[in-house]
């Protein structure tokens, strides 16, 4: 292994600009003549718009224009769409309600935009926005997904506020298996609604060039090409070739910056109308009521086992709250990213899952780190842990008895797991966490009046979200391959243009490690270019832990072509047959001789083209690839959480965290560990601290960082992180992906640990001190078998 190649903990290329304040985030971009946009937003969760009076706002200092939903409709700007079709059990398509970028007739959640003020400065726009008079007729709202079907109807297209009633699996076979079961564990679970809260708020800056009829959008997006495609093809803002989307440095995404939002549509439209660049920068309060939220499931789940603890079947019924409108990929999250993972790491012969997706008067819900897989893991790992406790079987042992041990393994819920070793990660985690010593630590803690508990989460996820044919057959409106272009310059340095997008993941480093290792050239001689539709040929962006498994695989395929072409050039230079050229460590050699050509010489010769005829071999050294993997990848592992609960206050302290993950091939262990840390923190946040709370009228009570509890440094422990490795057979590098694992594994581990400590399984998330204290006071025994 070289110091900068695959497997090396190379320090990141991107860090220099970030630690010196030279990062270039969207809000740092300033265009000549730039104006500022401030949105007028609904203070009501559900209301008819009787009228909007903008006359006073127009007279305010610095105001350039004030635009409303009626203006948007007049200009025939199209609605935002959800790009993944789900059909109900009865075969009917999902009920996608119109989602205009500015509401014209009615508002459906607090924060729904009704007008925009364009002014010379941010302060002037804000002042004028306060002068826009909106006459609302307030209507009753529904916020609780469990009550959505009987609540006031939000959209004409969706009776009973029902988007779809979907199912997966064989209900009759599951019923038959339950009838034979010796033990059934039943749980009611609420997967709490979360606010993503990337620390960089969303920003959109749009500019129109009347001379070329070209629109440019600088945007905090995880997928600039998808954004351009939707805004061009569905919103109809401009033809695709007349719209450029640039995603510069982006300050965290976690899913929330995948989606196409009203604000970028409005900025583009307004920039063309006013003939000047228009910038909108969200403040945090706006982020809370406009960024798509995550999770928000209400679930009843049952697990059937035989007398020996062998799992026979699982039955799950979930209501998923998708909020007021269907966000870009929202429909897929509680269906094909959720029910397909309900087999966990276990050989479960039969699984049946029903999911009802509903509208409520809340912010739209879509993918948030893990997207469906944390919800599935929480269901599975709570069921397994509780079943073990009820049957008086060691939780690790019950897991082992049911682990899938041979691959490939076809689950009853679509997924075909291709590789894994679940015993290996469990075994290593048991050792690292010193589970053998737990009973002694529990007794010691008891002497201090503390309750100690241990919780496991042996999770699995499906990442890459490809191949395209597979996701297409499940309703996805796009292909989820990835593309790469490798440009070798005449001097031998290399630019890689990737369709993935980094917003903290360190692609500029890991991708360069791959190229450096493969071509045998210095790491410093490789640059990674991403985030600009005028530079990168195409790309599907970054989410679903896909950039390594799919994005880097595309680079590998392009590098294969580069090597093949370079060998042809070298053969001409060395006057040898192409088949005799060997390439190793950046040098081309004629097999069995000492004749060789260095990388730089071959690169130069490819461009000066003096050694070969252009009719015989094209000059230049640049290759592209569009790569589609053969399967999803299946990262998996075991997280063990150890807690101490103060029996007087209910306060939980995480005293030990052990994570052992199998991500397949690891390019940069330092970056991978960092991804694991961050994911665990978000999972612990969900389990202990975070929860979006609406009151009955649809007001977001947790609407600022003062009210919504983000994990702080003092809320978290340091993490013990280990790896095991089975290669993914579905891509050339054997990578499985690491970005979401922590957030998927962690919530179940935390809740399993606390319920172990307090001896009561009825514990909701977030398990705040008050919640845990109340559970301790209730002191209910474990649910009877």
């Amino acid at each position, binding site marked *: 292994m070289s110091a900068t190649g695959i497997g090396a903990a190379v320090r990141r290329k991107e*860090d220099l600009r970030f630690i*010196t304040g030279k990062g270039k985030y969207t809000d740092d971009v300033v265009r000549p003549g730039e104006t500022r946009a401030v949105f007028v937003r609904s203070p009501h969760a559900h209301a008819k718009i009787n009228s909007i009076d903008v006359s006073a706002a127009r007279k305010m200092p610095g105001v350039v224009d004030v635009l409303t939903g009626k203006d948007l409709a007049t200009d025939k700007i199209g609605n935002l769409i959800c790009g993944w079709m789900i059909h109900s059990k009865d075969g009917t398509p999902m009920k996608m309600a119109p989602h205009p970028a500015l509401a014209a007739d009615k508002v459906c959640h607090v924060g729904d935009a009704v007008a925009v003020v364009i002014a010379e400065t941010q302060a002037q726009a804000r002042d004028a926005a306060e002068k826009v008079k909106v006459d609302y007729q307030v209507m009753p709202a529904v916020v609780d997904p469990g009550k959505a079907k009987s609540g006031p109807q939000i959209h004409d297209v969706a009776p009973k506020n029902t988007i779809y009633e979907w199912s997966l699996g064989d209900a009759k076979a599951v019923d038959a298996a339950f009838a034979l079961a010796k033990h059934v564990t039943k749980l009611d679970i609420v997967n709490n609604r979360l606010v993503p809260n*990337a620390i960089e708020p969303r920003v959109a800056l749009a500019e129109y060039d009347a001379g070329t009829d070209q629109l440019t959008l600088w945007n905090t997006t995880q997928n600039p090409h998808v954004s351009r495609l939707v805004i061009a093809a569905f919103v109809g803002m401009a033809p695709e070739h007349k719209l450029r989307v640039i995603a510069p440095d982006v*300050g*965290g995404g976690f899913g929330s910056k995948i989606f196409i939002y009203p604000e970028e549509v409005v900025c583009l439209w307004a920039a063309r109308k006013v003939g000047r660049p228009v910038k909108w920068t969200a403040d945090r309060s706006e982020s809370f009521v406009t960024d798509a939220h995550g999770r928000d499931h209400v679930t009843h789940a049952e697990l059937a086992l035989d007398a020996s603890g062998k799992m026979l079947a699982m039955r799950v019924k979930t209501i998923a709250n998708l909020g007021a409108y269907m966000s870009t990929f929202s429909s897929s999250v509680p269906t094909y990213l959720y029910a397909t993972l309900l087999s966990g790491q276990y050989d479960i012969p039969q699984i049946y899952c029903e999911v009802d997706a509903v509208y409520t008067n809340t912010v739209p819900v879509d993918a948030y780190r893990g997207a469906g897989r944390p919800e599935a893991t929480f269901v599975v790992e709570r069921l397994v842990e509780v079943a073990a406790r009820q049957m008086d079987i060691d939780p690790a042992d019950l897991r082992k008895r049911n682990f899938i041990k041979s691959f490939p393994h076809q689950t009853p819920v679509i997924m075909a797991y291709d590789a894994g070793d679940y015993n290996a990660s469990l075994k290593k985690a048991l050792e690292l966490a010193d589970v053998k010593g737990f009973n002694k630590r529990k007794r010691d803690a008891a002497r201090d009046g503390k309750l100690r508990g241990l919780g496991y989460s042996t999770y699995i996820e499906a990442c890459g979200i490809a191949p395209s044919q597979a996701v297409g057959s499940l309703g996805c409106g796009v292909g989820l391959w990835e593309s790469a272009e490798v440009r070798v310059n005449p001097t031998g340095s290399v630019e890689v243009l990737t369709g993935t997008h980094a917003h903290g993941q360190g692609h500029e480093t890991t991708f360069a490690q791959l190229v450096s290792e493969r071509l045998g050239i210095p790491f410093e001689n490789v640059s990674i270019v991403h985030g600009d539709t005028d530079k990168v040929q195409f790309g599907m962006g970054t989410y679903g832990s896909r950039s390594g498994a799919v994005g880097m695989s595309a680079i590998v395929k392009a590098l294969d072509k580069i090597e093949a072409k370079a060998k042809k050039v070298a053969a001409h230079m060395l006057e040898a047959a192409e088949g005799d050229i060997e390439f190793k460590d950046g040098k081309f050699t004629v097999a069995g001789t000492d004749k060789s050509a260095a990388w730089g010489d071959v690169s130069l010769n490819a461009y000066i083209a003096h050694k070969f005829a252009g009719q015989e071999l094209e000059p230049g050294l640049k290759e592209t690839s569009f790569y589609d993997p053969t399967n999803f990848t299946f990262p998996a592992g075991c997280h063990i959480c150890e807690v101490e609960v103060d029996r007087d206050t209910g306060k939980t302290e995480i005293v030990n965290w052990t994570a052992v993950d199998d991500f397949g091939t690891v390019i940069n262990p330092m970056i991978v560990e960092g991804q694991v840390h961050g994911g665990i923190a978000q999972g612990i946040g969900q389990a202990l601290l975070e929860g979006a709370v609406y009151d009955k009228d649809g007001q977001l009570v947790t609407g*600022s960082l003062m009210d919504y509890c983000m994990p*702080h440094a003092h809320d*978290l422990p340091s993490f013990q992180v280990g790896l095991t490795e089975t290669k993914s057979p579905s891509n050339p590098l054997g990578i499985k992906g690491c970005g979401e694992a922590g957030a998927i594994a962690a919530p179940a581990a935390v809740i399993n640990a606390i319920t172990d400590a307090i001896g009561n399984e009825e514990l909701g998330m977030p398990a705040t001190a008050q919640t845990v204290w109340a559970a301790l006071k209730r002191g209910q025994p474990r649910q009877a078998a």
Partner: protein
Amino acid sequence: MPAVSMTVNGKAVTGDVEARTLLVQFLRENLRLTGTHVGCDTSQCGACVVHIDGIAAKSCTTLALQCEGAKVTTIEGLAEPNGPLHPMQEAFRENHGLQCGFCTPGMIMAALDIVRRRGNDLDEHTIREQLDGNICRCTGYHNIVKAIAAGAKAMAKGGAHQAAE
């Protein structure tokens, strides 16, 4: 509009501002020092932390006019142009104490204030408690804590307890 004068990263600057203009707006918009970030509107996240007369402050909650005559240091002022990085900057890179980088300038400025107040030998508990005013969504803080401990030690070695104030 009233004028304000201050020293920013060692340079005397003046500008016309509204009475309500925040220091962070003055830094970002008037001076184009965009390393200082705004991540919230309630003084929770700390992405905007700068030093005013050597003490950490949230520039999103400070009026530009309050800084009349003050010495302000931002992330851009920690290292000389083309000079070596400040040991705390180096420690964040060496320990992978950043991912998306958005909270990082505020983290580094806050870290230097922890060193100023609590010295160069910082234990994990102290660092975690003292970071209460800064939020990171990417790293889970694990490597930020390591970076600050290492940076504080490196500052003692280099005799640089005082940042570039």
